[in-house]
């Protein structure tokens, strides 16, 4: 099952991920990404891959667990 990862130190709060996939990405009061869940299905993967690739600082990845 694909697993979401985030580099919380790299995140700059550009928030494109939240706009693209609000069901898995959110942002906290300090402007840092929050993972609403870490496991996703293969069916969701293309959409969430595209959301992860909308991060300007490459803070988001999807790995195969």
């Amino acid at each position, binding site marked *: 099952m694909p697993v979401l990862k985030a580099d919380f130190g790299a995140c*700059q*709060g*550009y*928030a*494109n991920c*939240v*706009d693209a996939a609000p069901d898995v990405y959110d*942002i*906290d*009061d*300090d*402007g840092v990404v929050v993972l609403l869940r870490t496991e996703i299905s293969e069916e969701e*993967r*293309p959409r969430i*891959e*595209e959301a992860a*690739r*909308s991060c*300007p600082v490459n803070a988001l990845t999807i790995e195969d667990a």
Partner: protein
Amino acid sequence: MTGTVLVVGASIGGVRTAQALRSEGFDGRIVLVGAEPHAPYDKPPLSKQFLSGAWELEKVLLLTAEQAAADGIELRLGSPATRLDVAGSRLLLADGEALDYDKLVVATGASARPSPWRPESGVHVVRTLDDSRHLADALRQDGPVVVVGGGFIGAEVAATARGLGHDVTVVDPMPTPIGRVVGPEIGSIFAELHHRHDVATRFGLGVEGVEGVAGNLRVRLTDGSTLNAATVVVGIGAVPNDGWLADSGLAVENGVLCDEYSRAVDAPDVFAVGDVARWFHPGYREHVRVEHWTNAVEQAVIAAHNIAHPDDLRPHSPVEYVWSDQYDWKAQIVGRPVLGVRHEIIGTLEGERPRGAVLYQDDADRLCGAVTVNWPRALVQCRRLVTGHAGYDEALDRIRALVSAGPAMAAVPATSADG
């Protein structure tokens, strides 16, 4: 769909199109054509972290050879496309190679508008990796820097040069340069940001000429005064890279004219994305060309989807979003503040710990745009509210509620390089 997709242009729009084609299930051949010899790289850091030296090259790369190979993307770098034959479905490169295609995506981006002032040396633009490297070399020498153009690039370069210890002056013929985007009142707060960081501005003045050589330049302004500079940076906008399409048969009018699906008009096998695309925005009911990073990424996904799934075409109808990191400000702009008839500031944009949002109301009493400073959570909300055509009063309530909900955020450290 199978066959061959040629993606022409290896910056953010082209790279993301190629990657999204795979995510969307396209299993044919993908060739990514890039004019420059470098591995595909990202542009926003070129006026900030890469320019200052805080980031190395590998951190700005968009697609390594290994990543390209893993996604089955063929890289064809170092030779610009010179001619497109739409009728023959063939692309010609400068080195003489011809590539045939089933679908082609124009993603050639935009170039820095060239400096009208051409002394022997010392005048820079910032658009490409080589531009940024040359300017970084120049900034390693002591001496004052004059930045011509007070827009986003100019302001970011000014902040970076100041962070490196230079005396910096920003010149622009507009009284408040960012005012073109955010209105004159908020624009003047952006101007104050320079002054708070000991950067001088000469706004409302044009440049008559630049003479001298690198290290010893004189910038003559329209009021008769002269600024001495070791280095001059010119950031006066960009022009779409569409000249190579002049005899292609495509409709080109300040960008490749496209329909709402990002397909070139009268050429259904050709798409365009990013800075070079002028597409019909169904929400605005007009053709627009947008030079924002996020638009290139979103349009890339749309174009890739529409190529891979021609029976399920999606229109590209985004709400604009752009950010600019200047000094201790992370400014984020969503929608079209310029359409605002009034605005209100929630929080504060000034002082030691700026964190605030400016909400703009259009003539239909809706939230048409917002500018946030050091407040990504408000940006997210505003982006949703603009997308949802929210009423202005509702938007004010929602953003005010965030003020009381969240703890005060620490200001971003006051360096230009880490924004």
